[in-house]
């Protein structure tokens, strides 16, 4: 199994090197096909590993193998390895599935309308392979340092892929932003690791958190007892910092600002990286460290509050976006916040909550991660198909596409139903369990998240209606929009099917925080109410947007300030712009550079000038002017004579 897992990692990496180095020499299509085939093999291997693990290791123990990579101290060793446990096995499946779909889909998407592959096709596949490698490496990390390494690597691949169209200024700007924001978060992640390892002296997950047995994490946290900084325990600092690291990748407020901009990348990339896989890295990280977080209530509360707020914030913003990819991006942020919150609400005050269903939130979070990856990838790929057909991201260029693109329309509808939480689609089950977990933590949490769930249903159906219904489409381009080639349609169908059935997976049997089977029971009150709220949201969307009508416009005008603020994402970008440009750039960098030139450099230049001037002053004495020599000499001689004379006279 270890061999297979390593192969799962090695294969995409080899594809990356092969396509990256030799790709230029081969026809574009060939490179694409090689990429897809390589990914197919990877996927098969990944499924094999996962099935193997869940079939033959009912105890859900951790299986790992590692090699030393960098010895910091004899004890603190950064290792590279693979670790198979329930969540990493599940992530292997998710990543490889979505990645394969995207590889296949891109064969069609990255072509113009004549079926010719775009320039840089090889590079695209090479980067996709690099991303897949990095993401797989992240989930099978045996230690937090390896996780950090792959956090950086996925950040890089995300950077490269967002900037795929690197001559477009917007893409150019977006990838920079994405990298720097996530880098800032990674800085905190690194600091968190540094604080954590300062006293525990290990990176290893086995020693830090074990698998659910709180003993390991208690031991680890115990080494930090008594260490405080500014009155807050070190373990709290470490975990909050690590959460900030995760929040950067998972686009939690206020580090979410890169994600909407990241939509400048090709749409399949958005589907793979910015919807399904990379953005859940933060959730995965918290899940990995879950037992430690349980022991640090302060950190857990931070996660919960940030998660709950982000969920609402992103949902509110998503309600008014006109760019469908951005709307989907905010939807993603909101859904990831669901997962975060779900993780965080499952413990309170150092204890798991929920009695016999303890750890439900953890399971629900992972479940939602799984289902969300599927249906959000589906939604994004549908959006890609639409964009490919109409050449625009704006929903007012779309309208009424149902007639032209029926398959896409149905697939999108399935995705919408899934995310809205309508049974029997996948999202219903996972979201329902999240809500149950929230209600178990407290009524306030539950009500808040239920409200956000209702908003989710509303904005998804708003988008759906605006794209596929509403007024009749006017043909702007020279060709009719239509369903796309099979390479693009097939992934839609596959993902739609998964979204339909994934909810029936007995997830509690496979993925729990401690590896033991968690029996879940449908909480009919919660389920009923959540479906009800979702239906209300859908109904509202239908009332407002199903047909073209002036209601949305009227509503917009009625609360134009709020609408504007939400449309501008509550001015977060402007705030960041202000901080980076006005404060950091103008306020710190420029003055420092000025100070360097004027004062530091100026000091040494002045020193040189001073020496020079002194030399010039002295030089006049030796100016080559014979007469002044003689004059000085004479005066000197006379002085000497006078002095001698006076002295003699005195004697």
């Amino acid at each position: 199994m270890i061999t297979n897992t390593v192969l799962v990692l090695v294969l995409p990496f080899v594809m990356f090197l092969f396509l990256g180095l030799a790709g230029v020499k081969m026809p574009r299509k060939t490179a694409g096909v090689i990429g897809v085939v390589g990914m197919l093999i990877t996927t098969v291997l990944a499924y094999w590993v996962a099935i193997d693990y869940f079939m033959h290791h009912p105890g859900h123990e951790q299986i790992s193998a590692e090699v030393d990579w960098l010895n910091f101290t004899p004890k603190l060793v950064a290792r590279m390895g693979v670790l198979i446990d329930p969540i990493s096995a599940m992530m292997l499946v998710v990543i490889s599935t979505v990645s394969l779909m995207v590889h296949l889909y891109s064969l069609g998407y990255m072509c113009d309308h004549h079926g010719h592959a775009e320039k840089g096709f090889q590079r695209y596949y090479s980067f996709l392979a690099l991303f897949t490698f990095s993401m797989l490496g992240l989930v099978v990390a045996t230690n937090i340092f390896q996780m950090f390494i792959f956090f950086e690597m996925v950040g890089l691949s995300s950077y490269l892929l967002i900037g795929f169209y690197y001559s477009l200024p917007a893409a150019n700007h977006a990838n920079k932003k994405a990298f720097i924001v996530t880098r800032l978060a990674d800085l905190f992640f690194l600091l968190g690791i540094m604080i954590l390892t300062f006293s525990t002296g290990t990176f290893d997950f086995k020693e830090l958190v074990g698998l659910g047995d709180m003993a390991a994490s208690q031991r680890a946290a115990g080494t930090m007892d008594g260490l405080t900084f500014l009155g807050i325990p070190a373990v709290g600092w470490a975990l909050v910092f690590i959460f900030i690291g995760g929040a950067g990748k998972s686009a939690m407020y206020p580090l979410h600002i890169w994600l909407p901009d990241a939509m400048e990348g090709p749409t399949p990339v958005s589907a793979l990286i910015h919807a399904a896989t990379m953005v859940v890295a933060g959730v995965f990280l918290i899940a990995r460290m879950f037992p430690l977080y349980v022991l640090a209530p302060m950190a857990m509360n931070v996660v919960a509050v940030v998660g709950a707020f982000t969920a609402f914030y992103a949902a509110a913003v998503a309600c008014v976006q006109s760019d469908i990819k951005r709307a989907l991006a905010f939807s993603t942020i909101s859904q990831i916040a669901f997962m975060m919150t779900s993780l965080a609400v499952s413990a309170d005050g150092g204890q798991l909550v929920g009695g016999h269903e303890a750890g439900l939130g953890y399971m629900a979070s992972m479940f939602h991660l799984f289902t969300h990856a599927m249906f959000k990838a589906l939604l994004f790929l549908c959006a890609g198909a639409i964009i490919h057909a109409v050449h625009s991201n704006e929903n007012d260029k779309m309208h009424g596409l149902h007639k032209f693109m029926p398959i896409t329309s149905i697939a999108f509808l399935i995705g919408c139903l899934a995310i809205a939480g309508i049974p029997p689609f996948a999202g219903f089950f996972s979201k329902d369990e999240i809500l149950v977990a929230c209600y178990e933590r407290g009524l306030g949490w539950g009500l808040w998240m239920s409200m956000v769930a209702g908003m989710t249903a509303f904005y998804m159906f708003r988008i759906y209606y605006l794209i596929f219904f509403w007024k009749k489409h006017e043909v702007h381009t020279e060709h009719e929009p239509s369903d796309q080639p099979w390479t693009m349609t097939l992934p839609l169908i596959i993902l739609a099917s998964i979204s339909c059935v994934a909810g029936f997976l007995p997830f509690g049997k496979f993925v729990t925080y401690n590896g033991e089977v968690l029996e879940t029971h449908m909480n009919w009150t919660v389920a009923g109410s959540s479906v009800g709220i979702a239906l209300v949201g859908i109904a509202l969307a239908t009332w407002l947007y199903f047909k073209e009508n002036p209601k949305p416009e009227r509503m917009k005008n009625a609360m134009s300030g709020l609408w504007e603020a939400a449309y501008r994402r509550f001015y977060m970008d402007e705030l960041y712009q202000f901080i980076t440009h006005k404060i950091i750039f103008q306020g710190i960098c420029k003055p420092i550079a000025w100070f360097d030139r004027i004062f530091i450099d100026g000091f040494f230049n002045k020193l040189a000038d001073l020496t020079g001037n002194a030399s010039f002053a002295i030089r006049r004495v030796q100016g080559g002017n014979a007469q002044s020599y003689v004059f000085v000499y004479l005066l000197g001689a006379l002085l000497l004579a006078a002095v001698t004379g006076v002295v003699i006279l005195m004697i």
Partner: protein
Amino acid sequence: MESLGNIIMYVIIALSIIVFSVMAVTTKKILRAATYLLFVLLATAGIYFQLDYQFLGTTQIAVYAGGVVVLFVFAILLTHKPGHNAEPITSHKKAQGILAAVACVVLCGVALFSFGRFCFKTLGGGTDVPMGKLGMSMLSTGSDGYLLPFEALSVLLLACIIAGVVIARRR
């Protein structure tokens, strides 16, 4: 008591030395400066004759007045266009020169008056050094012999001739 002729001679010599020295360094025309120098040198020769140093006086006239001044005149003619006036001397320089000259003269004067008890010595009845004695001492190595400086001077002169030729040679 000095003979009147001697005194008159002295006055002429002293006056011409003073006047021509001053004129030599103040005149604007360089050729005139050379001429005044010639008069000064001749007056100097006069002093030597008064002191009964006939040979020295003759040498002074032959070498200085005859040789050196001619050299000067040649040099001036080679490097100056006729009628060329020297640029006026800046007052700063003039002040510097006067300061140095006056300081020097004053200092020497003060020294003479404070130490120079010998200054009021008059000329004893010495006679001219006979040529024979001069020649003997110039070429002897005894207590009164000047062979070594004589030889050194000869070498120096040779060196100067060669140097003069080498430096002034047109390349």
